[in-house]
């Protein structure tokens, strides 16, 4: 295995984060603060506790999930798309790197960035609401798995996109709406029966639910279902990436 090759890609991508620290770190923090001001203090003060959890604290897992999903997909898609766009991908493709090693470099860096930002959001939330994490290891499991899985999805988007507009289509038109409708700011038990059933078709419901369970032992679906869903989603992404490298889709003419 070309460990140095993987490390080079990883360090290169992480250096981009450092170069764009404001964009990478400060803007998610500001967004989180705004969410807490609007949903936590302004509106949240008029909303009663949900399953015994203060509303401001209730939205913390969903808010983290929202940030991590967009950061994972955004970082990974940009990470692989930009060298394709600028032409520097030739260097990656001509290096003695296997497909797996290339994925490890790009996805590893994107997932790391998303995890850092997720933890920063959690720390920021701590300034606004009292936080308790009942199952910290399960919380970390969901955090890591979500960041990796959505970085894999971002990697797929970055290969599929043939323009900067397309890079934004799936995160904006699919992931963000699914996250908002996936119980980030409410419990799906609060919805009418019909919409509860429709919500179960939304994969993000399982992620938010499992993640929230790790905080407050409250979930919309069972924790095992959530774990299974995140694993299935990861395997699907890995399978698609396998096909991309096998066929050379949009990478090797």
């Amino acid at each position: 295995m070309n460990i140095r090759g993987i490390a080079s890609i990883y360090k290169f991508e992480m250096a981009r984060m450092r170069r764009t620290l404001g964009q990478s770190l400060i803007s998610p923090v500001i967004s989180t603060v705004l969410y807490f001001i609007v949903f936590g203090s302004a509106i949240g003060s008029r909303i009663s506790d949900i399953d015994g959890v203060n509303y401001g604290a209730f939205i913390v897992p969903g808010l983290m999930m929202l940030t991590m999903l967009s950061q994972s997909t955004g970082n990974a898609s940009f990470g692989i798309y930009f060298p394709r766009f600028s032409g520097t991908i030739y260097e990656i493709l001509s290096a003695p790197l296997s497909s797996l090693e290339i994925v490890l470099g790009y996805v590893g860096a994107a997932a790391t960035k998303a995890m850092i930002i997720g933890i920063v959001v959690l720390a920021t939330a701590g300034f606004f609401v009292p936080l308790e994490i009942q199952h910290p290891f399960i919380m970390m499991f969901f955090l890591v798995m979500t960041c990796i899985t959505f970085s894999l999805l971002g990697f797929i988007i970055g290969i599929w996109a043939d323009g900067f507009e397309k890079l934004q289509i799936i995160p904006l038109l699919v992931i963000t709406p699914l996250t908002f409708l996936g119980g980030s700011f409410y419990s799906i038990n609060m919805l009418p029966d019909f919409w509860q059933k429709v919500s179960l078709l939304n994969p993000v419901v399982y992620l938010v639910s499992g993640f929230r369970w790790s905080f407050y032992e409250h979930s919309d679906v069972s924790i095992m279902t959530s774990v299974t869903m995140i694993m299935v989603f990861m395997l699907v992404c890995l399978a698609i990436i396998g096909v991309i490298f096998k066929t050379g889709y949009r990478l090797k003419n």
Partner: protein
Amino acid sequence: MSKQTQPAQAAISVSNLNKTYENGFKALDDVSLEVKSGEIFALLGPNGAGKTTLISTICGIVRPSNGSIKVNGFDNAKDYRKARQCVGLVPQELTTDAFETVWRAVNFSRGLFGKKPNDAYLEQLLKDLSLWDKRDSQIRRLSGGMKRRVLIAKALSHEPEVLFLDEPTAGVDVELRKSMWALVGKLRERGVTIVLTTHYIEEAEEMADRIGIISHGKVILTEDKTKLMKKLGKKELVLELQSPLKKLPKGMGKLDLRLEDDGNRIVYTYESAKEENGVASLLDSLRDEGIRCKDFNTRESSLEDIFVTLVKEK
């Protein structure tokens, strides 16, 4: 340079290589080619002939439709890690990581190829390429010529044994072009095999040991440069006449002659490699016809003339 070369093997060996793109365009048509270890091989061809596709396929950037490629004896499909470790590529386009510094960019390239950091080597490399003073500059702040040198530094950062230079001097000034020729000379002295594509045929004439000509995806010729110029080169004998001729005398019709400059000049074209080149017969004919010359000179066809003739023929 690290030596993984197996003895008595060509640096590059391409056999029956084909590449047809998804749109049906056949970019490589049964290409077979060998590049000897340590030589400078110039690959010439008109635009769209398949030069870049061939290089990209050897480097692993483009998938071949079929055929085989070996670099230093390593199959670039089955043993791709070893094959690719031997190769450095300087692409035609100025594709650089605009926001990276020169130093980080060369370190990144070295790392990609799995090489241990070696600051001393990279420092010397940047010094050789007159980039050391710019090591902390972002690449986007460099001139076009310097960016080109950064690409060369990146390609050499992992100490490759085979270097591909795809149009290395396209769009660079004469001074830089000459400094690149000097660099290529140095690399050859260090035993690096160099495959060069260029539009400047004088560049190939100046540097190459062997020439390959590719047209419409087919390699139509590979030959030692000196032999090629001897074999296919033509020479012209230009005779300036004392008084102009209206037309060539009938007795001289057998020779490949033409009148120029309103009949003030006779030009005789002949194959330089032939023992019996017809110059003696021409001089006899001139004497017999009473044509007197005031001056003469000879000129040889360049590699460019040979290239144009060959590509036209095919």
